[in-house]
C-alpha cells in the first residue's frame, strides 16, 4: 500500500532514485526487487491473470524508468510507482474492453487451480476444501471482470489492497467524492453478482 513504506526504506528509495536519475540501472534493479511483488499483486488483483499481470508490471517498471527524472520526491517512491502501475493497468483494461463485455474466461479462472499439485505445501487445506476455495475464487474473478476499469480499480484498492479514499484518489487522479461514488456502484454490482456466495460462505 502506498502509505505503508517506512521512513528508513523511503530514504533509501530516495537515494536509489537519485542514482537512477544518473543512469544507474543497477539501482533501478534494486528498486524493482523491493516493489515487484507488491506491484505484481496489485496488478493481478485488477486483471486476474498471472501472465497479464507480469507483462503489465514490466510495462509499468519500464515506464517508471523512462520517467524517473520527473520524480521529485513529493510522495514516496512507491506511491509514485503505484500511480504509474495503476494507470498502465487501467489503460490496458480499457483497451481490452473486458470490463463490461467479458464473459467468464475458463483459462483465466482455472489458472492456479491444481488441487492435486505435488508442489502444494503439506499444510494447505485438503483437496476438497481447496477445490471449494478455487470455485469461490472463480466466482469472484468472474464478477470482478464484469466491472468497468474505473469501478474495478476502486473496489480492488479499497477492499483488497486496503487503501484509504485519499490514496485511491491520488492514484487515480480524481476526487474523493468520485472514489466514493464509484465504490458505491462497484459494491452494488458485486453484491448482485455474489449475493449467494457471501451469504453462505
Amino acid at each position, binding site marked *: 500500500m502506498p502509505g505503508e513504506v517506512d521512513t528508513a526504506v523511503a530514504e533509501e528509495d530516495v537515494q536509489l532514485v537519485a542514482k537512477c536519475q544518473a543512469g544507474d540501472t543497477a539501482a533501478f534493479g534494486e528498486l524493482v*526487487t523491493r516493489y515487484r511483488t507488491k506491484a505484481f499483486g496489485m496488478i493481478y*488483483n485488477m486483471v486476474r491473470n498471472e501472465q497479464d*499481470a*507480469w507483462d503489465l508490471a514490466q510495462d509499468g517498471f519500464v515506464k517508471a524508468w*523512462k520517467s524517473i527524472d520527473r520524480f521529485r520526491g513529493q510522495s514516496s517512491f512507491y506511491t509514485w510507482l503505484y500511480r504509474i502501475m495503476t494507470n498502465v493497468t487501467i489503460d490496458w483494461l480499457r483497451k481490452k474492453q473486458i470490463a463490461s463485455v467479458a464473459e467468464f474466461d475458463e483459462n483465466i479462472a482455472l489458472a*492456479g487451480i491444481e488441487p492435486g499439485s505435488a508442489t502444494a505445501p503439506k499444510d494447505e487445506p485438503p483437496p476438497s476444501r481447496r477445490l471449494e476455495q478455487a470455485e469461490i475464487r472463480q466466482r469472484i474473478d468472474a464478477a470482478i471482470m464484469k466491472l468497468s476499469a474505473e469501478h474495478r480499480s476502486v473496489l480492488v484498492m479499497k477492499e*483488497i489492497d486496503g487503501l484509504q479514499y485519499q490514496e485511491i484518489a491520488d492514484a487515480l487522479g480524481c476526487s474523493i*467524492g468520485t472514489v466514493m461514488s464509484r465504490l458505491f456502484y462497484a459494491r452494488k454490482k458485486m*453484491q448482485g453478482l455474489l449475493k449467494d456466495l*457471501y451469504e453462505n460462505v
Partner: protein
Amino acid sequence: MKTFEENFTAWVDGILSEEERLAFEATLDKDAPGERNRLLQLGELLRNHSPAPALSNPDFFNHQLLERIAAENGAPARRGQSPWFVPRFIFAGASCFAAAVLLFHFLIPVGPVENPSSAPAYVAQFYNARTDDPDVSATAFHSKKDNVTVLWLDGLDYLPETADLK
C-alpha cells in the same frame, strides 16, 4: 453537499460522524443495517479469497526488465542538463513548422501570376486511338486559336501509299 452515493459509502465504511450517521440513517429504510452488514460481508469475502499469487521467477522478472530497458535506450531522458536542451514537443513543433515552410516554398510556385489572356489558346483533344500495334497511335487535336485540326500519327515508319492525306 455530498451525494447519496458518497454518504452511503461513508456510512458503510463507518466514517460518518455520529451526527451525520443518525441523519443519514433516518433517510434509509428499515433494512439498512442489514444492507450494511451484507456489504461488509462482501468486503470480507473479497479480502479472504483474493490473495494474489506469488510472482514466479522474480529474478527472471528483473533480468527481463533490465534487458528490455537496455534494449530500449539505456539511460532515462535527461532534462535541463544541457544548455542546448530543448523540450521535445517544442523541437517537434519547430520541425513541423520548418518542414511546412520548405514544402510551401518548393511545391507551390510563387511569382507573378500570368495574365489568363496570355495563356496558350485552348487545345482540345477529341480523338485518340491505337492500332493492334501498341507502338502506333493516332490523336487528333483542335486549336481554337489557329482554327486548325491536327491529326497526330505516332509510331508509323511511313504512310501507306493508299493514305490520301491533305
